[in-house]
């Protein structure tokens, strides 16, 4: 089976013990995203304080890829400023579009490089990106809100 190449140990660990999976009571922005092809859903709360991402928390149902990917993403993003958060997000998005050719920079993406194998399975890329796209949306909503 090629399964091991897709489901790395790190992914299964995050799936079984997801990080930050409990919605915080306060937030700058809350978003809800759905993967229309499979019905997976996520709600994500993001808090922005002095330009830094102070909190990312979430709730949702989904496959191991979407759950692990979201968990890894929250670990990565908390403590970053919006600019570097968006640059990490950009790197992850291109890794997902790499059709199995890229490995991903571990210095930037940390645990998220374990998801590199997903890029070989077009049907699963949306799963891996669900939490990240919710995060991107939450960032842009937070920024607009703070500008007001």
């Amino acid at each position, binding site marked *: *089976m*090629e*399964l091991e190449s*897709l*489901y790395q140990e790190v992914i*299964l660990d995050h799936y079984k013990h997801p990080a930050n999976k409990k919605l915080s009571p306060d937030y700058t922005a809350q978003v809800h995203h759905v993967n229309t*092809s*499979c*019905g*997976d*859903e996520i709600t994500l709360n993001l808090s922005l304080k002095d330009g830094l991402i102070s909190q990312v928390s979430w709730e949702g*149902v*989904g*496959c*191991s*890829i*979407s759950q692990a990917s979201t968990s890894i993403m929250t670990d990565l993003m908390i403590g970053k400023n919006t600019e570097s958060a968006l640059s990490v997000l950009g790197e992850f998005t291109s890794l997902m579009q790499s059709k199995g050719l890229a490995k991903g920079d571990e210095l930037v993406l940390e645990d998220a490089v374990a998801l590199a194998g997903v890029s070989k*399975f077009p049907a*699963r890329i949306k*799963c891996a990106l669900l939490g990240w796209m919710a995060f991107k949306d939450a960032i842009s909503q937070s920024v607009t809100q703070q500008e007001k």
Partner: protein
Amino acid sequence: MTSPIDVAALKRDFAIFDKKMRGGKQLVYLDSGATSQKPRQVLDAERFFYENNNAAVHRGAHLLAEEANEAYEGARQIVADFIGAGADETIFTKSATESLNLIAYSFGNSKPGSKFHLKAGDRIVVSEMEHHANLIPWQQLAKRTGAELVWFEITEEGRLDLSKIADVINKKTKIVAITHQSNVLGTINPIQEITQAAKKVGAVVVLDACQSAPHFQIDVKELGIDFLAFSGHKALGPTGVGICWGKGEHLSEMEPFLTGGSMIETVTMTDATWAPAPRKFEAGVPNMAQAVGLAAALNYLSKIGMDRVAEHDALLTEYALSKLVALPGVSVIGPQNGLDRGAVVSFTIDGIHPHDVGQALDGNGIAVRTGHHCAWPLMRKLNLVGTTRASFYIYNDLQDIDILVQSIGEAQKFFGVL
């Protein structure tokens, strides 16, 4: 019990089974509920049409136009015979989805006074187990006209709850749109009970036969229905062709859905009149080669015999149910035995999301469907995010099910849930 179909011999008609899947595995195709594979005879029929008869039907006086016409109208007759209908009542569309929209939009276009005109106070009945294709057109028609949408619920067992049938189908009811067989639960619904209730109040019955027409003998008169829809591509036919059947008396009173070429009688700059059915509902140059391909597909099925197809399906379904029901950590969704149940078996595995189940099975060359199966309201009712669905057809055998069962065990081990 052994199958009346020689699967090994039949499979040679389907080139796709020569394909090597990931890791060199053989294809175990358990997704015919989504779309069936196509035998060579269907592809040959399409190619033959393009290479020998291709011309726009209903137009032109040249030899090819005549031959194309003959092929297309011949295909119509074959489809009509397949469902026990008249050729003039059998409309080619591009899919079942289009067929159902055709009916809904035609009703929506009807003028006050027409028996199809809907208004506030009228009622449209569907069920909780409908595919989106037989829910949304009616839901939206209700919204546009002010009619009320009501539905049959499902029982614990996954059958239609007809206990309140006289309340659901009441005097206000104008349309009952119902699936013959659920694409998720496999349940085959008792259509005659519904058509009897509908007849009493003068409502029309629209049957979604997507999952039934390819699998067992259908006779529109025996069923007592008013309209029927199915897709060619689930019945060994090509994509891009569907069927909409309606009783002649209805079709002649109905407004068209799509307008344009070929569907008219006369046209001036400010007005137009319609050709009689079926042409009234076939605007534009139709999918001719696909219609011819569908006829070849139905001929292929008829040659096997629909009673044999049904017997073969029943054998596989019983076998799959008996195996899956016995597996630890696996729950079969819908009726647990083969009674009034078609060749579709949905299940969930404790601790593994359907998407991951599908991926694990794919690793062994098995193609199944995962997710909400275009039946989101049903998933909500069942309190599920999705299921994994194995569906069977004439090219499957018991060994395919054994491979499925074994692979489920491997997946449970891999994800550490057993």
